[in-house]
């Protein structure tokens, strides 16, 4: 084994990059060393080439910077796709629940998990029999649909991009970015329980904007916040009560006219609000 071969082996071991990019760099270095060795000895060519560890570090840093940009773009696209599919899933479950325009707001989780992983976990792709107590509190995704007669106004609103905001209930950024309307559909993450077995999922319902007189005087920043009330529901024959501490949106306001619950492994269900299921 020549000095050039040893150097290339050392460089290959030091490189963290894999695949085509790695093969390309090794081939380029091999050609460079072969050219340099043709005018001098192998050892001199290798010594002029520098440390393999330094070269690998420089190259890996360059590749990492490039991949970070790609990963960020891919994460944003994935998150928006997941949010849009969740909204379409909710709308597709009921013919009456039509939505001409879709907007999605995605909130980064406090723990800075990868966005796609977090949204997949919290948007219904999780087994229902998993104990939610062992899962992180949902703070990552809120999606909403617009009413057909508010089509243009919703499209003009800007929330189709992710915002690094946590925690969700305290900010109500969703509501602040919506155009004023007396009533609209909202979707949020919520938790229900029947005393011992909590269920966590995506909930949808009608919501109103608060009047200023109803806003809290202690927290004026919450004025005009969107409020969604989650009523108890019967799922699988069990009567579930909403857990007021785990609502993605404030637990107050008017009763929802329609309501949806999405769990993994089961189709989305939208329940008409009736007196028999309200508390």
């Amino acid at each position, binding site marked *: 084994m020549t000095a050039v071969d040893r150097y290339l082996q050392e460089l290959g071991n030091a490189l963290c990059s894999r695949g085509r990019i790695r093969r*390309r*760099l090794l081939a*380029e270095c091999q*050609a*460079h060393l072969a*050219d340099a060795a043709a005018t001098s000895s192998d050892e001199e060519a290798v010594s*002029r080439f*520098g440390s393999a560890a330094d070269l690998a570090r420089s190259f890996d840093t*360059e*590749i990492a910077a490039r991949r970070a940009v790609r990963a960020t773009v891919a994460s944003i696209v994935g998150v928006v796709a997941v949010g849009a599919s969740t909204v379409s899933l909710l709308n597709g479950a009921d013919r009456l629940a039509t939505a001409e325009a879709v907007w999605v707001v995605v909130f980064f989780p406090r723990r800075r998990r990868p966005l796609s992983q977090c949204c997949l976990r919290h948007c219904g792709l999780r087994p229902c029999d998993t104990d939610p107590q062992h899962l992180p509190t949902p703070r990552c995704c809120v999606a909403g649909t617009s009413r057909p007669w508010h089509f243009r106004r919703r499209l003009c609103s800007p929330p189709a991009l992710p915002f690094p905001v946590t925690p969700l209930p305290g900010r109500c950024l969703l509501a602040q970015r919506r155009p004023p309307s007396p009533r609209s559909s909202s979707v949020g993450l919520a938790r229900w329980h029947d005393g011992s077995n909590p269920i966590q999922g995506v909930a949808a319902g009608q919501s109103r904007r608060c009047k200023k007189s109803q806003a809290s005087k202690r927290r004026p920043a919450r004025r005009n916040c969107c409020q969604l009330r989650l009523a108890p529901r019967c799922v699988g024959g069990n009567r579930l009560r909403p857990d007021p501490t785990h609502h993605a949106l404030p637990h107050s306001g008017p009763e929802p006219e329609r309501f949806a619950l999405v769990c993994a492994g089961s189709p989305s269900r939208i329940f008409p609000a009736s007196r028999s299921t309200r508390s």
Partner: protein
Amino acid sequence: MKAEFLRGHLEGLLLAVLTDEPGHGYLLSQRLAARSGGELAVPEDSLYPALQRLERQGLVTSSWTSADGRRRRVYRLAAAGRRQASASARDWKRFSVAVDQVLGGLA
């Protein structure tokens, strides 16, 4: 010359030596050393990452060629790279004049 002096100017120097004709990595380092009278020896641990960076920015293009039984990656200057090379030359002239006004009197 110290390698630190090249930092920040390596991309511009590579674009400058590519304006004449395309070349592979070894040829570019040789061309750079020759045109600088042997003063500028590009460290190889900076050469190939810099070429990759230029390619990512769309300033150069590259392709594999075979000659003398060897495969080499040949880099060519793109149109944007030619404009960037001219801009780098103008910036360097301004910078060198400014530095010379400060340091020139001490020599």
